[in-house]
């Protein structure tokens, strides 16, 4: 790494970029969660792009030579034309481009929008909401004429794309947000050149196994009698939530988070995306869940399944954009 940096003619320090696209900023925060390590990071790295933290403009990036940025963390999915353009720009300017966080790797929560149509989304925001005053049915436009010239905003895309849909990605760091400790380990590995060969399939700052691996709750090898929603019942302490009938994505979710949600008495929702070599987290969960119902007849099985109120939103909460089907028809 350092040797590369020198070639970039820099001060020997690693040049780091952090960019957010369609995301919430939690990723930026999570990077700060490394806390004391920040000062160590500063020793070895310069930030050359971090819009929410430092004053670099797009024009600056355009002016960078190609491959100028050693490591660029890109968080957020691609929801509009600007984000795609920046993604392509940063790909050109970065030696290593890392999809950082659930939104960049799998679409994340914003990709739930892939289950809706664009008209629907616009209607909900600009036409059909209780606090609205929009008699002229105005909608945001890519180009608006003002008295002084055109005003431009990015084009809204039909659906949320993963970073790897628009550019080649070198590593993926899953999680909503990624856990700081894991990230710091990954950064160290990166600085030390310890990361595996770059490949868009490689997920770092996480483990291969599933959340159950980190979950303290006990399994009793019983099948699910009935499904319960988290607010409908008190979970018994210490006992696997799934076996109790609370749908927990833990078994189908990559570990690395430390099973935090489960420890807070709430079922996992799968933010680290699929575990092992699974491509489609939802399909994997359906395969598992369907195998452990305590139902001997089709009728009973259907009854139980009917109590799963939102299959798509449950099984693809964070991974709609990386699922096999990618979104709604």
């Amino acid at each position, binding site marked *: 790494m350092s040797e590369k940096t020198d070639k970039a003619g820099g001060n020997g320090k690693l040049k780091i970029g952090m960019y957010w696209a369609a995301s919430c900023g939690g990723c930026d925060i999570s990077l700060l969660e490394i806390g004391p390590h920040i000062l160590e990071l500063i020793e070895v790295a310069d930030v050359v792009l971090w819009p929410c933290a430092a004053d670099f403009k797009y024009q600056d990036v355009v002016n960078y030579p190609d491959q100028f940025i050693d490591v660029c963390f890109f968080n957020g999915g691609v929801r509009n034309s600007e984000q795609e353009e920046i993604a392509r720009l940063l790909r050109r300017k970065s030696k290593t481009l890392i999809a950082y966080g659930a939104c960049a790797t799998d679409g994340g929560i914003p990709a739930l929008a892939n289950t809706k149509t664009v008209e629907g989304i616009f209607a909900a925001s600009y036409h059909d909401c209780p606090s609205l005053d929009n008699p002229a049915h105005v909608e945001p436009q890519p180009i608006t004429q003002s008295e002084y010239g055109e005003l431009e905003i990015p084009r809204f895309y039909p659906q949320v794309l993963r970073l790897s849909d628009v550019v080649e990605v070198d590593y993926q760091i899953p999680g909503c947000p990624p856990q700081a400790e894991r990230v710091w380990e990954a950064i160290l590995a990166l600085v030390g050149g310890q990361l595996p060969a770059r490949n868009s399939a490689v997920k770092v700052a996480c483990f*291969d*196994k*599933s959340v*159950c*691996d980190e979950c303290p709750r006990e*399994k009793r*090898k*019983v*099948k699910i009698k009935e499904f319960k929603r988290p607010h409908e019942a008190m979970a018994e302490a210490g006992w696997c939530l799934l076996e109790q009938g609370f749908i927990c994505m*833990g*078994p*189908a979710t990559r*570990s690395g988070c430390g099973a935090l949600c489960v420890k807070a008495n709430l079922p996992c929702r799968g933010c680290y995306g699929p*575990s*092992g*070599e*699974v491509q489609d987290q939802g399909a*994997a*969960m359906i*395969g*598992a869940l369907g*195998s*452990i119902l305590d139902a001997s007849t089709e009728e009973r099985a259907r009854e139980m399944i009917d109590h799963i109120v939102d299959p798509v939103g449950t099984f693809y909460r964070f991974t709609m954009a990386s699922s096999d089907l990618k979104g709604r028809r």
Partner: protein
Amino acid sequence: MVETPGSCSGSGNEHENDARIGVFICHCGGNISDVVDVKRVADEIGKLRGVVLSTTQMFVCSDPGQGLIEQKIKELGLNRVIVAACSPTLHQLTFRRTVARAGLNQFLFEHINVREQVSWVSEDKELATQKATRLIRAAVGRVQHLMPLDKRRIAIHPTALVIGGGIAGLVAARDLAQRGMKVTLVEKRPFLGGRVAQLNTLFPTGEDAREALNKVIEDVVNHPLVTVHTNAQILDSEGVVGDFRTRIRIEPRGANEHLSYRGNAIAACPEQTINEFDFGLSQRKAIYMAYPGCYPPIPAIDWHTCTKCGKCVWAVGGKGIDLTEQPREITLHSGVIVLATGSDPYEPLYGEYGYGIFPRVITLPQLIRLLDPQGPTGGQLPRNGGGPTRIAFIHCVGARQIEGVNQRQPDGKVKDYCARTCCTAALHTALEIKQQHPEAVIANFYQDIRTYGRGHEAYYERASESGIVFVRYDPHHRPMVEKDPKGDSAFVVKSHDLLTGGLDVEMPADLVVLATGVVPHDISELVGMYHCAVGSDSFLLEVHPKLRPVELAVSGVFLAGCCQGPMDVTEACAAASAAASKAAALIAQGQVEMDPFIAKVDEELCTGCQTCLTVCPYDAITREETRGIAVVSEARCTGCGTCVATCPSNAIQQFGFNDAQVLAEVKALLQGAALG
């Protein structure tokens, strides 16, 4: 090279690049080529990457056909072979052997079905040709991911355990012993013989049932290789083919071989109970013999009835009876298991044709007991004053029932299957009565007469000749049995008669005989123990009704007789012999070979989420506590692959059906579909 743990991964495409595929497409005479343009298919397939030979043959399964495969494997160094022909159920094994002969691992062969599933079912030749091309293309995609596999081999403990001492179990035990195999026969009841002992004569020969039975019993009990345990209950069983360990509990018999005055002992007993041997038509003592000449020839004590009053001990001078004897448990080690747990006659529901309400409504098995000279009535039938006895046989009671017409059984189902034996048995018995009482008036209310066996039809003809009446009812309107209002007979049986264009008929009857069907003997605990597949009719389910009729899916466990379905004695014995020879063959091999399509856990990926543990129908998956991961028992796994689809981490893969292989098929099939 053989697959090693972990190499059965979802992305096992390490062979993709060096695949040299040979494709042989069969004309099957014209069966395939009349509809599918096999030449064109061959050309299309020939263009695919990795395919070094794509050719057609008139009959690939013929000697020249197989010869060609062998020759090409050697000549072109093929390392994958695809045959597109008939259904794999017919010739897959044939071709596996073929490629094996040519030195290629037999599991690098793929069989594609373009006859049963293409040429025979398609009309449009163009589209059929395209379909055949797609299917073979999919195979080409799949075989790139195939890896050499070895059949699994397990040593067989050279002993057979036969469960059930009825005719089937006895025959199986005899045949096994005669082949020089050690056999342990376990019977739950105190006496051998089962249902056949309750018959008088056997059709079609008319010979004495108990004599015939005793011949077999003697062969068995006198054979040095056979050990018999009566009064023996199976407690549990573990292990797999080749190495079953079955724990049994042997109830004390009470009496032993030193008992000389059996009669006195039995006579002395003050306790009476229902005699199941006569289907409740008679009583027996707490210490009893099933029937004269039964085996073992020693009385047994029924501990539920016995009060241990000691009168029998006193009556025999204390010799040969021990009321303090304790049960013992022993473990039987065996390599194979033959299930001969038999069947029971269907017990009519209370009020079904008046059964249970009127004592003179009886079942066929009860009638047979009544006709036994040594039976409850010394062979006498209930009489109609001075007049001739009038007997109505009603067929298909508890058989061929119809959902909605017949009352549901306690298990919520109706007995919709044909019990097969009751038609002949009923006519056989009716004729016996006719011989003893030519004046008797006998009618059969039936829906169909199914005297299907060799010589069975003769009973039907003789019955008709000897004036036995036949009334054919419509299964949707079954006959009715009512008390005779006039009182000059016990009942009137009312029905309509399809033979006379649906005329209503009424028949006065002194005795109504229900030709009852057959239900499997209740062995639910064994079903769980041996993971038996059970059919919707509750009888045990064989692997394949035609190709593997006496084997359970659980390897090493065989089916003999009526536990598999209604059979007459002939068929039960045939099945038993078949099971015996299968079992013997397995033992003789010394080891078992099993398909290698089992599941394997990738220890790197397994999280120990334990989702799979409750899923395996054969309890083949256990948790290894130390590493907290799941492990599949090779011997127990039957290769269904259910756990593969279950594992949310794709950490479990199935040899021969791993994700890479099946996904490759899917994608290859859909090539071009993407373009709509």
